[in-house]
């Protein structure tokens, strides 16, 4: 049975009212429920403008966007935001409460939850994201990585079906990136659709299989990470760099027949070792 569509974008065109220039040009896109998808492209390619359509912050000028079948033009941000949680790039734009607990409970209070239940739920999420020890701390005392996790917590707390993360790895170290990947996998196992907007090619190569690439307001490629990220033309057009193992695999392709996702380190090593051991 085909899975439900979480996001459907059809012939989407968008420009800001005072501007002549189209920021999004005829975007067509389907994301199934339960997928993990990366939307990639350089700064200014239109990625953030696109995801702001997913919870109705922006409405299409032409075409439509549907979230679980709901046309975003016919529903308010408040309705859509319960289904689609957006985590923006800069935590400082999102954080404002005086304690980590208050910050995490904010949305639930808005939704009219009973305070005790809201607190229980917030505590559960903060524990999952390793922030429980800070519940009475000011969010502004947290490190950059912790602030990012807090913004994820304050969205996850109201249990949206779709989680959209805008550049979660910018300015993060390797250990923190690994932790984000674990969080993404875990919430995905719980059935949630996860959309990661990023230009971090190595992060996508390591963790995400389904990739959409944007350049200058258009989708220029979509498919498996091994096909898309190793396509020189696409990467050049999007001003992205090919992942290191992708570049090595392309150069070795004459000799080595790679099977599976060779962008992942263990598979790359296994495939090369097999070839080296062949007589």
């Amino acid at each position, binding site marked *: 049975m085909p899975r439900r569509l979480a996001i459907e974008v059809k012939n989407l065109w968008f420009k800001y009212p005072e501007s002549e220039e189209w920021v999004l040009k005829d975007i067509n896109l389907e994301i199934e429920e339960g997928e993990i998808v990366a939307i990639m492209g350089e700064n200014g390619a239109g990625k953030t403008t696109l995801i702001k359509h997913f919870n109705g912050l922006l409405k299409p000028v032409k075409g439509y966007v549907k979230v679980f079948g709901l046309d975003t033009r016919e529903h308010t941000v408040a309705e859509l935001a319960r289904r689609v949680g957006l985590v923006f790039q800069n935590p400082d734009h999102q954080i404002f409460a005086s304690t980590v607990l208050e910050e995490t409970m904010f949305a639930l209070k808005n939704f009219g939850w009973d305070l005790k239940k809201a607190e229980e739920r917030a505590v559960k999420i903060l524990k999952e994201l390793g922030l429980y020890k800070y519940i009475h701390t000011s969010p502004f005392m947290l490190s950059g990585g912790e602030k990012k996790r807090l913004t994820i917590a304050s969205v996850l707390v109201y249990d949206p079906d779709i989680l959209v993360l805008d550049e979660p790895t910018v*300015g*993060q170290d390797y250990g*923190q990136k690994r932790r984000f990947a674990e969080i993404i996998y875990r919430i995905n196992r719980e059935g949630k659709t996860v959309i990661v907007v990023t230009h971090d090619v190595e992060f996508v190569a390591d963790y995400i299989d389904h990739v959409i690439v944007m350049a200058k307001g258009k989708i220029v490629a979509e498919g498996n990470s091994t096909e898309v990220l190793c396509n020189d033309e696409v990467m050049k057009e999007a*001003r992205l760099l090919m992942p290191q*193992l992708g570049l090595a695999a392309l150069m*070795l392709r004459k000799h080595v027949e790679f099977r599976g996702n060779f962008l992942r380190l263990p598979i790359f090593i296994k495939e090369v070792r097999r070839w080296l051991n062949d007589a």
Partner: protein
Amino acid sequence: MRAIRIEGVSFKYRGSSEWALKDVDLEVEEGEYVLITGPSGCGKTTLCRCINGLIPHFYEGEYKGDVVLFEEIEVSKYEPYQLAPIVGMVFQDPESQLLMSSVEREIAFGLENLGIDRDEMRRRVEWALKLLGIEHLRNKAPYELSGGEQQKVAIASVIAMRPRILVLDEPTANLDPASSLDVINVLSDLKRKLNITIIIVEHRLNLLAPIVNRVVVMDKGRIIIDESPEEVFLRKVDMLEKIGVEVPKTCLVYRKLFEFENEEEMKPPFSPEDLVQVILNAKKVSNRS
């Protein structure tokens, strides 16, 4: 000549209960290109601030030890404006550094503050624009530029002061990959032309491992590794992974694919091209035997 001597430096920010730096020693020779890396919160940025005098002059806290530049300039005894022509600093977010209405004026701004005369100022602005390859941007406003262009302008305005040391704190953190590579290439070019001493803090090591001549790794306020990139990415890989520092994938493949009887023969490949060469050579050798 020794460009930087850091001796027994410890620093604790006011209001913080933990030491950000704990008894750090580091010596850098003139002309070196040093990468400083380590997990977030390890003290990298604090160490940079000790080199350019923001600590102890701007950030308050408890400070111990000495930082001496070119064997005579004690950083704690000079005002930041006196240090500006000696140590140039470039930050993560170029927007926080750019404040004038055009690129040309931006580059001239630091020079005006140093009291440099107008003719010399014009010469230096031209020189910096050319050196960074941004002459075509001279009349643009910084906010019209892309992140990568902004970062090049920030570097130009620092370089125009002719510092002998350039300190960059995660200059590519907010840039997309192509712009990051662009900025790093510009730095290599500067290094070649000026023989300036460069200290760069970065997380993305695969871009820098092939370029720098020394890698300093920090963790919890201390320097735990200080070696050549070859040493670090061959023999310290486990330690790096444990503290959460990214090792270039080419080096990881190399380490896991090949076992060498003689460690002297090991040379980690920093680029996919080098890795492929090593793999093809290994195949030839095994076919022959």
